[in-house]
């Protein structure tokens, strides 16, 4: 099938477009609604979370390069929203969220390892005193 957004040729079973990342399943049945002359009022601008705050927190506060992909996906969310591609933006949003969680997971794992090392240090200190 061809992507409705960028026209790239995808496998018929593809879930997202290989080129632009558009959700192909959601856009597959294009239902023509313009038959009765009912004017659909323009809704409020769609808000898709880009998790930029957490991406920057992860990069600058947790000291982690894993925050960089989160920022890149945050930018992708907004660029797709600007292009009117809500489904694509939601996909990028999911990726941004995932990278934020990876960053925080690594951060807490690191803190855990650090605490264990300190415990071992204290324990061996007590051990050597006796």
């Amino acid at each position, binding site marked *: 099938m061809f992507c409705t957004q960028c026209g790239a040729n995808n496998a018929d079973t593809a879930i997202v477009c290989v080129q632009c990342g558009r959700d192909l399943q959601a856009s597959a049945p294009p239902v023509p609604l313009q038959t009765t002359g009912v004017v659909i009022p323009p809704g409020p*601008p769609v*808000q898709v979370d*880009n998790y*930029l*705050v957490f991406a*920057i*927190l992860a*990069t*600058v*506060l*947790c*000291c*982690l*390069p894993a925050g*960089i992909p989160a*920022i*890149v996906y*945050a*930018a*992708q969310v*907004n*660029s797709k*929203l*600007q292009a009117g591609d809500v489904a694509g933006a939601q996909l990028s949003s999911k990726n941004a969220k995932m990278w934020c969680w990876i960053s925080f997971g690594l951060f807490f794992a*690191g*803190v855990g390892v*650090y605490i264990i090392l300190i415990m071992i240090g204290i324990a061996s200190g007590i051990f050597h005193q006796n």
Partner: protein
Amino acid sequence: MALIAHKRSVWLLAAIFGTAFAVMLRFYDPATSGVFPPCPVHYLTGWYCPGCGSLRALHQFLQGNVRAAWSMNPLTLIFLPFLSYGLASRALAEIRGQGLPRVFLPAVWIRALCAAIILFGIVRNLPLHPFDLLAPGAMLGL
């Protein structure tokens, strides 16, 4: 319903953890106390990452030393108001269902921001004079 309760408890936990962290950071200097772990990137590679010095910067900021905070990590100080706004907005959205007014950043700005962070991480490692001042604490010789 269970999902909302779950989300709430994650936020509550984050708020408690964050407050405890800030209080600890106010009283213990990451530079000298050993309470806080060192930056893993600097520890493993010897290079300063864009976030190196951010904990020391926050500590100095909480102590009221803005100049020292700036010298430790200028990025942290620049981002602080924006991050505070974003986090406050999310917290308010959890509590009363509506956050602060949202600002839509054009994608180009976010990409520029990303490039600036990466560039800052590269430049502060350069052993050339004006750039070496960007290493944590170098501006004040700390």
